[in-house]
């Protein structure tokens, strides 16, 4: 891989041992990819905090939080002091909500450990956004901006909806980018990788959040990590719809970029979206595909008694919290069920000012931040059956926790929480 003089100086230790280890990781990673060079980035989303007993024990045994950062963020067993971030860096979601962690089955000791690690991240200069949706709360990249983001649902949003450029980074590569402002110049940083290679034609209107989740889940299973060009979009989808669409497609497959012709920034026309490529295959999505996908997502759903409803995967927008509060107002969550809604801390602040938090809490539900049930592996005690309006969460939770999952609309989910029963399909 070609390195600039600046990159060689970082590799050789000019900026200290942590930066040198970060450059070493980026070089090994770039060579694994077959990249020719690194590209400059000043926008990184990653995770640098420690939230698990495993990492706590690692810290105690190996030399504190610097040891955790060295091993898990820089891939070195040599303990080096944690450096300051050079790039604008945002923290992603974590393994629990540290504010009222009791319900999430997290001990006070782990919360105290996390708080030390959050303080260290803040000292490092990482913004404590603690969300899978940084683009909702202060980090909206410009079209063409080179980024180094983790979190598959944020990556697909960044590339497709915003037209910024990022691959799906991991903990180690994102952290290395934070302290070097570099990432391999490969994949979605390059024009040729971003062009469509196959197509989808919509044969039916795709309009609601549920519609977009189902469509995304179907599409991801088919296209895996190729770049699809979607024609036939009617009603222009808004942020929550595209958030659910991308999250579903990146869970069932590995979709990191899509083009919605006439909607997304690199797809003003079909020709622009393909950029000279000829589609290898074009499929249609209609009522049959939709109902088969719904059946597949609901394959673990057997019992209709619902113990738990989770909303906010990816983290809810203020619009979705408003909608949930309207649906919940004057109702109560069933005594045998529970409702947890997850959102970024900054949006919870707005929800509280708008009175939504009070409505949600008065109904016996919770508005939580920083995490989700899949990240935290936490659900209310005794949960056997759960319901979601997110295809991504319905995909992951049965695998992670062995629960049965129902997928449906936000309204069906809130009805399930208030009646204790699933009445959707």
């Amino acid at each position, binding site marked *: 891989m070609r390195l600039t003089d600046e990159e060689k100086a970082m590799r050789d230790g000019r900026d200290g041992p942590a930066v040198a280890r970060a450059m070493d990781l980026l070089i090994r990673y770039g060579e*694994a990819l077959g990249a020719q060079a690194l590209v400059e980035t000043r926008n990184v989303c990653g995770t640098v905090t420690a939230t698990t007993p495993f990492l706590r024990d690692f810290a105690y045994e190996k030399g504190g939080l610097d040891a955790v950062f060295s091993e898990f963020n820089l*891939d070195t067993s040599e303990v080096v002091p944690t450096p300051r971030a050079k790039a604008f860096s945002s923290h992603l979601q974590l393994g629990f909500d540290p504010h009222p962690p009791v319900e999430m089955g997290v001990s006070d000791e782990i919360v105290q450990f996390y708080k030390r690690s959050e303080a260290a991240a803040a000292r490092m200069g990482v913004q404590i956004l603690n969300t899978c949706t940084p683009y909702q709360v202060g980090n909206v990249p410009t079209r063409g901006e080179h980024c180094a983001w983790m979190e598959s649902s944020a990556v697909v949003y960044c590339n497709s909806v915003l037209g910024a450029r990022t691959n799906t980074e991991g*903990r180690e590569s994102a952290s290395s980018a934070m302290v070097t402002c570099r990432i391999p110049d490969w994949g979605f940083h390059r024009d040729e990788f971003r062009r469509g290679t196959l197509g989808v034609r919509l044969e039916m209107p795709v309009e609601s959040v549920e519609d977009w989740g189902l469509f995304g889940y179907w599409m991801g299973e088919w296209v895996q990590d190729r770049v699809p060009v979607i024609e036939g979009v009617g009603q222009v989808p808004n942020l929550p719809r595209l958030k659910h669409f991308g999250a579903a497609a990146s869970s069932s497959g*590995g979709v990191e970029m899509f083009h919605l012709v006439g909607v997304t920034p690199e797809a003003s026309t079909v020709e622009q979206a393909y950029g000279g490529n000829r589609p290898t295959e074009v499929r249609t999505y209609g009522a049959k595909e939709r109902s088969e996908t719904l059946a597949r997502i609901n394959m673990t759903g057997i019992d209709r008694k619902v113990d738990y409803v989770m909303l906010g995967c990816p983290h809810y927008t203020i619009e979705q919290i408003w909608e949930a509060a309207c649906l919940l107002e004057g109702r109560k969550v069933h005594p045998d069920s529970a409702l947890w809604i997850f959102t970024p801390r900054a949006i919870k602040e707005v929800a509280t000012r708008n009175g939504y938090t009070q409505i949600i809490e008065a109904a016996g539900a919770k508005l939580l931040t920083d995490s989700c049930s899949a990240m935290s592996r936490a659900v209310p005690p005794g949960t056997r059956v759960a319901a979601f309006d997110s295809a991504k969460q319905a995909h992951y939770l049965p695998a992670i926790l062995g629960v049965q999952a129902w997928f449906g609309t936000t309204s069906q989910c809130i009805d399930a929480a208030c009646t204790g029963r699933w009445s959707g399909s």
Partner: protein
Amino acid sequence: MTGDEIITIRGRKVVPGVAEGEALVTTQAISGWGGVDPRNGTVVEMRHELRGQSFAGKVLVFPGAKGSSGWSAQFHVARLMGTAPAAWLFNQMTTKVALGTVVTHAPAMTDFDIDPLTVIRTGDWVRVDADAGVVTVRRACGA
């Protein structure tokens, strides 16, 4: 070892090193976070053909990675817990699989002259010499 069938595949080094072990082969992409459990080195994804099977110490032969960006972190923890694969052979390059294999420090290869998924079967003994770019597959006669 007379009578054993020996097959040689050539490819590109992804992570340097030499290792050998029993092959675990899947034609389905693997999810990291939410797809595997690093505590015991098993696949946990619903509907995955390897669900419940362990990749610890095996030569994992698979098309590529999919799913969450927690891919590398899961396999990084697997290395520290001693449950990571001994070596990796895959077809489809992505940032997930590149970083994930790099942080396990286990030899990895891709860009093969023969698709390993068409040649290697679960249970074959496989030696991966990533430095030389050579995979040697040994299958007991009649197996």
